[in-house]
């Protein structure tokens, strides 16, 4: 037994045995071991973490997944499952002593059932492809994470993905009915049902957002919704970020639940406008995008009401998209905010905290004070409807010490989110990235309970080990790190 570069134990005899046996279970092209073949799997959407897996397995049937899991269980080899690899928290980061199980070959839409408004999918089906396939029946799949062209439904379930419409239509957990999963022991389980609920504990909720820690998802049945008759978007400009924040509360207080309610600050507006040419008012301190959907009659009524509320809240300008093309353009600016910010700064660090909406002025003020203190600009993009903040800290990794300062700044933002009653992650997940911050949000008893939940599914701790829930020991070390204020006790550990 020796130790690999990432500190994980590796036993060469077991590994040779594993690869030999995998080749018996799967076709030759479905077992990858050459460095060049492993390279595309070394990271997910959070590319600061990179690591080559021992081996990549690409099964294409449920029986093959079960066989691979049984083998790994027998040999006590850890497994990391992976969908499209678009995750933003390092949840699919491979292990140098483990199998990277790619579900990429599971990309068939198995069944669209318009009579019952549901669809059964293999986990590798892309999010957007579901709505495209359902469109012929007047139906769609509601959760729409910004990566929806590429991200897959299996990954969406693992991360409980949201999107810009979740205030009204919910997250993944609200839009799925049934899962087929394979446990670490190779057992195939049906979780949930094609009916609106199922007997026993709500394992469907437990599985959603479990970040590949409990079981491997091999089939997903989703709920489909009738496409709304009409969607209309308003764009409002404000000369003060806080007025925009007030307007958000006023719309909700009026009893209107917008389909989407997004806010951007000046830095983000300018970047998005230069990138997407959406016609955003660049002199504004903040803009709000408010999408209203429903029946024709209802949308007309709500557009009038919201327009009035926006003016009363001090909007300097309110525009309504004149046609579908303009509506798409308004959204294009928002949806391209991340790549747009990527153009104006060598690097950026995307945060994903949530806060109660009323805390917005306080939190934004604090972020802007810290921004000055650290000398690092911030672009704020905000799912205002559901309190999900995405401050993007702009930095240059090539400048000495800037990454460390960025990390510390980000850390303080997440800590503030928890202090005001929010969460360290609204939709990107914990993965590797926020494992230390879990120690801020949860106490030892709660973390121990999480470990016990994992053990109920995976007693040997072989599925995606080391992610999502920190060990108590890790939290103790992290606590010490706090005291020393940024002086990392183990600089060799990855800690982005």
């Amino acid at each position, binding site marked *: 037994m020796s130790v690999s570069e990432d500190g994980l134990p590796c036993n060469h005899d077991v590994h040779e045995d594993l690869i030999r046996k995998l080749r018996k279970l799967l076709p030759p092209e479905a077992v990858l071991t050459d460095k060049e073949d492993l390279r595309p799997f070394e990271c997910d959407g959070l590319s600061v973490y990179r690591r080559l897996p021992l081996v990549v397995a690409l099964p294409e049937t449920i029986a093959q997944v079960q066989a691979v899991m049984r083998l790994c269980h027998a040999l006590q080899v850890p497994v990391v499952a992976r969908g499209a690899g678009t995750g933003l928290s390092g949840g699919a980061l491979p292990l140098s002593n483990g199998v990277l199980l790619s579900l990429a070959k599971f990309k068939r839409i198995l069944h669209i059932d318009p*009579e*019952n408004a549901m669809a059964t999918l293999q986990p590798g089906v892309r999010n957007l492809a579901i709505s495209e396939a359902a469109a012929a029946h*007047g139906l769609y799949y509601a959760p729409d994470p910004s990566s929806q062209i590429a991200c897959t439904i299996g990954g969406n379930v693992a991360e*409980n993905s*949201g999107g810009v419409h979740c*205030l009204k239509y*919910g*997250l993944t*957990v609200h839009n799925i009915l049934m899962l087929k999963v394979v446990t670490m022991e190779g*057992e195939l*389980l049906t979780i949930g049902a094609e*009916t*609106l*609920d*199922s*007997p*026993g*504990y*709500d*394992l469907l*909720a*437990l599985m*959603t*957002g479990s970040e590949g*820690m409990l079981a491997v998802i091999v089939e997903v049945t989703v709920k489909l919704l*009738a*496409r709304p*008759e009409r969607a209309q978007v308003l764009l409002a400009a404000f000369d003060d970020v806080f007025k925009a924040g007030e307007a958000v*509360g006023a719309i*909700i*207080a009026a*009893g209107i639940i917008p389909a989407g309610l997004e806010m951007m600050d000046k830095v983000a507006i300018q970047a998005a406008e230069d990138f997407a040419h959406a016609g955003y008012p660049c002199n504004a301190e903040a803009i709000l995008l408010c999408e209203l959907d429903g*029946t024709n*009659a*209802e949308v007309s009524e709500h557009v009038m009401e919201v327009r009035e509320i926006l003016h009363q809240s001090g909007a300097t300008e309110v525009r309504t998209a004149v046609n579908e093309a303009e509506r798409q353009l308004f959204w294009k600016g928002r949806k391209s905010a991340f790549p747009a910010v990527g153009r104006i700064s060598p690097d950026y660090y995307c945060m994903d905290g*949530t*806060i*109660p*909406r*009323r805390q917005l002025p306080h939190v934004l003020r604090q972020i802007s004070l810290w921004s000055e203190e650290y000398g690092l600009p911030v672009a704020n993009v905000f799912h205002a409807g559901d309190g999900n903040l995405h401050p993007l800290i702009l930095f240059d990794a090539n400048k000495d010490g800037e990454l460390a300062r960025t990390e510390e700044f980000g850390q303080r933002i997440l800590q503030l989110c928890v202090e005001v*009653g*929010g*969460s*360290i*992650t609204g*939709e990107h*997940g*914990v993965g590797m990235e*926020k494992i230390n911050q879990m120690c801020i*949000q*949860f106490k030892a*008893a709660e973390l121990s*309970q*999480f470990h*016990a*939940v994992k*053990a*109920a599914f995976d007693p040997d701790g072989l599925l995606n080990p080391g992610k*999502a*829930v920190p060990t108590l020991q890790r939290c103790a070390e992290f606590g010490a790190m706090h005291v020393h204020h940024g002086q990392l006790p183990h600089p060799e550990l990855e800690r982005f």
Partner: protein
Amino acid sequence: MLERDISETLQHQVHSAIGNGAPLKIEGGNSKAFLGRESHGEILDISAHCGIVEHDPRELVLTARSGTPLKEIETALAEAGQMLAFEPPHFGENATLGGTIACGLSGPRRPFYGSARDFVLGCKLINGEGEIMRFGGQVIKNVAGYDVSRLMVGAYGTLGVLLEISLKVLPRPAASRTLIEECTQAEAIRKMSQLLSQPVPVDAACYHAGHCYLRLSGSEQAVKHAHEHLGGEMLEKSDPFWHTLREHHLPFFDSANPLYRVMVKPAVPPLEITGEWLLDWGGAQRWLVSDEPIALIRERVANVGGHVTQFRGGAHNGEIFQPLAAPLLVIHQRLKVSFDPHGIFNQGRIYANL
């Protein structure tokens, strides 16, 4: 309105139960004692642990202690023009929030807006080691840690004692009306299923005694237009009908025979099981009053991919809830042990060995 935090007392009682190896039976308003299997133990009364902890209408979130009467919560929300969108049945004057969430019950609006578990954002609980813990939070999006709060919904108190629950709440619709049309059960199923792919503001749909009932809700204009589009007569008193349905106060529910809750896909044609049928949730939740053996009912329903709960009446020591597949039961047992290692909470309430 009473406000009292007795979590320390409850925690103390849990510690004593662990010490004495004496199981507990968690009780709120005792309005849902008829549900599930018989469970024995000393009563842990949570009804004195009550009061709304926080409700800021602009946040669309309400947090209350588990013993808070459901009525009190609904009144407070109504004053702010809001509601519990899952429209929970009370099944009694003293129904509490804790019991509602522990049983995971939802009313007529459920298929259109979501179930009790869909609206749970966070909770505070005592686990079987007597530890007080918090999961989830008071924000709509939160993916830190496993979703333990939603796991508590429908667990019938077998995993822990709920102390506090945070829920997402929604504005009450500005207008609402109910359309009624005479038809057969098969016609009603087709009609309700077709509505699933139409952009109409329906928020309740049922079939009862030869009539299909559709409730439209939304803005004045939306409801008016939808009525014109769908046609049909308007029921004079809309709210009382859905209320009596939700609370099982319709004469249909007064029967000497057992009442079964049959869950199927909404478009499944009428099932050939002798008895009286009432279809709610657009056909997805079907109530059956029948003296057929439960094994036969379960077999017929399983053939169309559904499941059956013996809801009222009949023996209460058998399989009240649909039995679980063996590997799933193993996971349930391990989860139970992970939360309640000494087996003190509502032992046997859902399944004999849980």
